[in-house]
């Protein structure tokens, strides 16, 4: 399998002339933009990794005249803080990506769903948005962006719950299908993308899909912003090409004593030391929305797991059975094993339960609890029991 050495790049945060890119995109038109996006191979940076070009293509194909572009800036995954940085430093690129998406699919309105805790960014963002609207008007875009503030529920980052929330309802995921590109916000065809994905659209239009594809690997093209935290001497935000191994990553960011890396936050996977060398960070290996948390040997993996389960038991929206009750059972179950009230073999039942949650939960939250649970229990079983 193709891998990459650690390669730092500076594309997301570099300052560019947005007008130039937006003029170029305007001239490319819908088909031109979508072709570039498809050719670039870019996949969503919000976690699920759906090919962005495909998403836009589906939405563009919908005959309905009213469509929406939604920027997902809910950034609720524990250990991610890159979207905040992007919005703080280069919001015009985020708006730019939305305008390009709008041009591609034929939308005239967009929403930025901003994590409630990032409210402090609003005054600055609104000012910048004003200037942005003027600029795109001059180019010829017919597009307006509005902000909506989230209210602190992790589940509202899930795209359909996010729509419900914007619509003023309780943030609960919807049944899929229908998918957002057909029936999204206000029941209209909608493109929802992560902040970083939208900035990638600007990069792709500016530099062309070929140049973009030259970064990363075949299945994970381009670069990505990583939020590095945990037991590291150098926490922070780094833009790296996709496709490095976990081992490369740990060599660069670890403190010399890393025993595990949690890739992708609570919803992601725990990679133990023995798997560092063979684990690729990217869509062909373990995907990540950007969160990379390192744990050294002083950490109790029981506590790590307990924290995640606590988080899920609280943040599950609660509507579906496997997730609402399953998260509580996993949490109470590991506690009972730890206290010796349940035999260690009970962990096997819990692993099976986590598998059921993966295949029967309604949305990505319940479906991903098993990632952390099973990878931690399988790799650090003794730490959970004793």
């Amino acid at each position, binding site marked *: 399998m193709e891998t990459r050495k650690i390669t730092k790049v500076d594309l997301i945060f570099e300052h560019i002339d947005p007008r130039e890119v937006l003029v170029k995109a305007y001239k490319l038109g819908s088909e031109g933009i979508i072709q570039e996006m498809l050719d670039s191979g870019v996949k969503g940076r919000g976690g699920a990794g759906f090919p962005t070009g495909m998403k836009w293509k589906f939405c563009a194909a919908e005959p309905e005249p009213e469509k929406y572009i939604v920027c997902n800036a809910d950034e609720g995954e524990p250990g991610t803080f890159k979207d905040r940085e992007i919005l703080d430093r280069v919001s015009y690129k985020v708006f730019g990506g939305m305008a390009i998406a709008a041009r591609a699919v034929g939308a005239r309105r967009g929403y930025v769903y901003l994590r409630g805790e990032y409210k402090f960014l609003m005054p600055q963002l609104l000012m910048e948005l004003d200037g942005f609207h003027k600029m795109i008007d001059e180019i010829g875009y017919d597009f307006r962006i509005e902000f909506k503030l989230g209210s602190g529920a992790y589940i509202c980052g899930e795209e359909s719950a996010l729509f419900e929330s914007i619509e003023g309802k309780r943030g609960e995921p919807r049944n899929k299908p229908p998918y957002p590109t057909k029936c999204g916000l206000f029941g209209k065809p909608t493109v929802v993308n992560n902040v970083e994905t939208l900035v990638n659209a600007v990069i792709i239009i500016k530099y062309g899909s070929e140049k973009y594809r030259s970064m990363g690997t075949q299945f994970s093209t381009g670069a990505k912003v990583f939020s590095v935290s945990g037991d590291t001497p150098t926490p922070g935000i780094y833009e790296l090409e996709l496709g490095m191994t976990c081992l490369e990553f740990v060599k660069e960011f670890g403190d010399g004593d890393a025993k595990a890396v949690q890739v992708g936050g609570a919803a992601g996977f725990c990679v133990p030391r023995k798997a560092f060398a063979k684990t690729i960070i990217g869509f062909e290996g373990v995907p990540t929305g950007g969160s990379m948390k390192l744990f050294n040997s002083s950490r109790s993996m029981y506590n790590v797991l307990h924290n995640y389960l606590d988080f899920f038991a609280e943040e599950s929206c*609660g509507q*579906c*059975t*496997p997730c609402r009750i399953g998260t*509580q059972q996993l949490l*109470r179950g590991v506690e009972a094993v730890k206290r010796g009230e349940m035999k260690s073999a009970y962990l096997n039942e819990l692993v099976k339960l986590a598998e*059921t949650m993966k295949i*029967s939960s309604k949305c990505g939250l319940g479906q991903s609890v098993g990632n952390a649970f099973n990878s931690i229990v399988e790799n650090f079983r003794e730490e959970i029991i004793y």
Partner: protein
Amino acid sequence: MINLTINSNPVAVPEGWTVLQAAEKLNVRIPTLCNHPDLCVAGNCRVCVVEQKDARTLIASCSQPATEGMEIMTNTLKVRNARKHIVELLLSEHRADCTKCYRNQNCELQALANEFAFGDHLFLDLVGEHEHLIDRTSASIIKDDSKCIRCQRCVRTCTELQKVSAIAVSGKGHEQKISTFHDRPISHVVCTNCGQCVNRCPTGALTEKTYIDHVWDAIYDPSKKVIVQTAPAVRVALGEDLGYDPGERVTGKLVSALRQLGFDYVLDTDFSADLTIMEEGTELLTRLKKALVDGDKETSLPMFTSCSPGWIKFIEHKYPELLPNLSTCKSPQQMFGALAKTYFADNVKVDPENIVSVSIMPCTAKKFEANRPEMRDSGYKDVDFVLTTRELAIMIKQAGIDFRRLDTSNYDSVMGESTGAAVIFGATGGVMEAALRTAYEIVTGKEVPFENINIMPVRGMEGVKEATIKIEGCLKEWSFLEGAELNVAIAHGLTNADKVMSAVARGEANYHFIEIMACPGGCIGGGGQPIPTSTAIRQNRIDAIYAEDMSMAIRKSHENPEVVAVYKNFLGEPNSHKAHELLHTHYVERMRY
């Protein structure tokens, strides 16, 4: 058509059908829980998951549209294991004191547990993790969160069918629950007590407040005379709880059973339904005269019927500005109650103090209604205890009565005489039809101009029905109505009621008379009727109601001999002073949340 296979059997279904519907077409049973035929798809219990070839996850068959070429397997090991887990999870959160539960043996969770989760518990018991208080504040409904499985059927019922939204989901994760506005007691929110949520709750989380033991106490109290009235809709539904198919009429056996239970007098709400027609019909004609002839600006039209206590509470909360349009007539139950401890007591020469008045109703809101402070015009509590159809079935079982073998018998007198007009009160459109049969005849001296006096335009399951009746050939004192077109509307289910009310409130409706029933299908779909319910079941009950009507010798309220007699001997005439005192009431404005 969409072609797919289920368990390797091909099936073709129209576009838009779900996998579950496709399976039903093949007679493949997929278990469900949050799904209900009356409600929109939720897809949240996940009990109905099935395997789709090459799909990453299982799919919820209730919400998954069938697509071309799909290959579905409903009973693989993967599916069975997931279902077992899901049912076990639900049980781990559910206080399963089945043997003490009101829904024992009629519980969908219990049925699933029987199939998928017998034997040892797989998971930890989480019931103790939550502090569940049982809300007994309502006169009609008890809410026990420890039995709630969060299927949200009740929430969907309350918002979709009833547009009341007294209950909603609150909290998330382990704190998620079905709650009220600010977690207030049920008695202090917009709940109309209609009990539609109770009808659709798969478990014992929502039940009616039961008064069975109070009634047994009264029956066995030698100092009391216990009289019972039975609503029209009970006789076409009670059978369902006693082993009959929906739509079986059991009127005569019902009377015999009540006698065997020990009630001293078995009487009929039909009598007071006919009385209601006399009072309400007269009120309508009086209002029309005031408005059309006297030009009285104070007279509120259209007039709304007032038989359905769920509807009354709804309008008191949501459209208090329209309360003057509500007929001042009490419901048949309460008219009966007021007469029971006056007219009837005189008749049988019993001190009203010693009368216990019980009613058997298809309704949970009637329990609240009987407890309203206004309902004491006899000088006593007019109706002491209200039992639902379901509670009566329980009493019959408790008494060891072999219902099937009972002979039929007739109601006692006085206040036991019925007409076809009274019987159809049980179906949506029935009050309207009964009122028209009488009012038309009062005004013109002739029968309503419909074949067999069956006024078909006001019948049927459509949510809002409209009809126009042209009045021709008026008697002299009603000549001001000659040639007039009476516009009527009928709505059942409070969502439909709300549609009509908002049109009236906006001044966009030109109706004269509107019948509203809180429950889908009218009283036959009431919150106190046997569980389960569905459009088909309600239709069967309605068919039985109209069959009962056709079988009656007298089919017009004003011809009910006991009604004629009560006016002659006691009340004077319709809307007389005495009638107003006993048979009419007033309403209160309530808060909107």
